[in-house]
């Protein structure tokens, strides 16, 4: 299935699995993008190679950054009419708590949606959504 077909199907059926499968890095990381009533939910089931601090078994900051960025990009892609992945201009990641060796979730909210650029706030959490582990502010150009 081509990326375009995967994207068309995702928008039609609310299933992003084929889109995620088409992105080698997201597949290698084991990332999932689920669609629920609130929109796109980024899910990263824990894998041993995500560890960044072996002493306290915490997830690498770069892994959280990648989840936040991917969730922002896929949310923009899914909600726009573009057939290309958005281009990320910049991202600022705040690390709020150490992330444990368990599943991490992420959700994006648009701070401002323009015609060409979207400002996105993305928050990542684990067991308790009220206790985010990381958050990011990013700007994406619609593809």
């Amino acid at each position, binding site marked *: 299935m081509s990326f375009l077909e995967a994207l068309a199907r995702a928008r039609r059926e609310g299933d992003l699995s084929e889109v995620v499968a088409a992105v080698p890095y997201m597949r*290698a990381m084991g990332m999932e993008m689920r669609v629920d009533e609130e929109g796109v939910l980024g899910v990263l089931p824990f894998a041993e190679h995500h560890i960044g*601090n*072996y*002493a306290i078994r915490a997830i690498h900051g770069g892994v959280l950054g990648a989840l936040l960025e*991917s969730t922002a990009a896929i949310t923009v892609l899914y909600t726009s009419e573009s057939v290309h992945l958005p281009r990320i201009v910049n991202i600022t*990641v705040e690390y709020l708590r*150490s992330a444990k060796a368990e599943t991490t979730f992420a959700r994006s909210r648009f701070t401002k949606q323009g015609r060409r650029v979207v400002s996105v706030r993305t928050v990542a959490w684990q067991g308790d959504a009220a206790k985010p582990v990381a958050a990011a502010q990013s700007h994406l150009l619609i593809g």
Partner: protein
Amino acid sequence: MSERDEAAAAKTAAAKTAAEKVAAEKAARAARIDQAFNRAVPYNAWLGLETVDVGEKGAGRLVLRLPFREELVGNPETGVLHGGVITAAMDATSGGSVFLALAEPLRIATLDLRIDYLRPAEAGRDVLCSAHCYRVSRQVAFTRGVAHHGDPGEPIAHAVGTFMIFRDAPSRMADALKSGRAGEGEP
């Protein structure tokens, strides 16, 4: 040999020994970063990070190579690396530069990291990540860095980071960096 020649020869020999000592210290530090940081940290190992340059002692400068591989591609249409991979590699390089700037092994944690993507990485090419920890205060370290394909004048991304320093908590990773015995007794 005149007295003057002898003195000059001794001076040259001393300079050579000093230069050798500096080179040996640098090589040992590079080996420690490779072992305790690039290989012992699972995600750094998965990314395949390699040490390129550890700078002068205490300078807080680090250059790591991120070898290209298909698994790290973020855009299937262009074959370009995923932005998150650049973020992760810059996070690792920036954190490493903080370790190199600290006089003693201490635990650190990323507070925030901003990445500006200046131009797309080229498909199939390795990325060099260079970071400098230019200020260490009592509790916070400040870094800036750049990712490029070999010419820092044509950067792929700029990175600015801040890191918390825990002066009351010696780090096992930092200890490993100091002793070069990374991963000993680790899971």
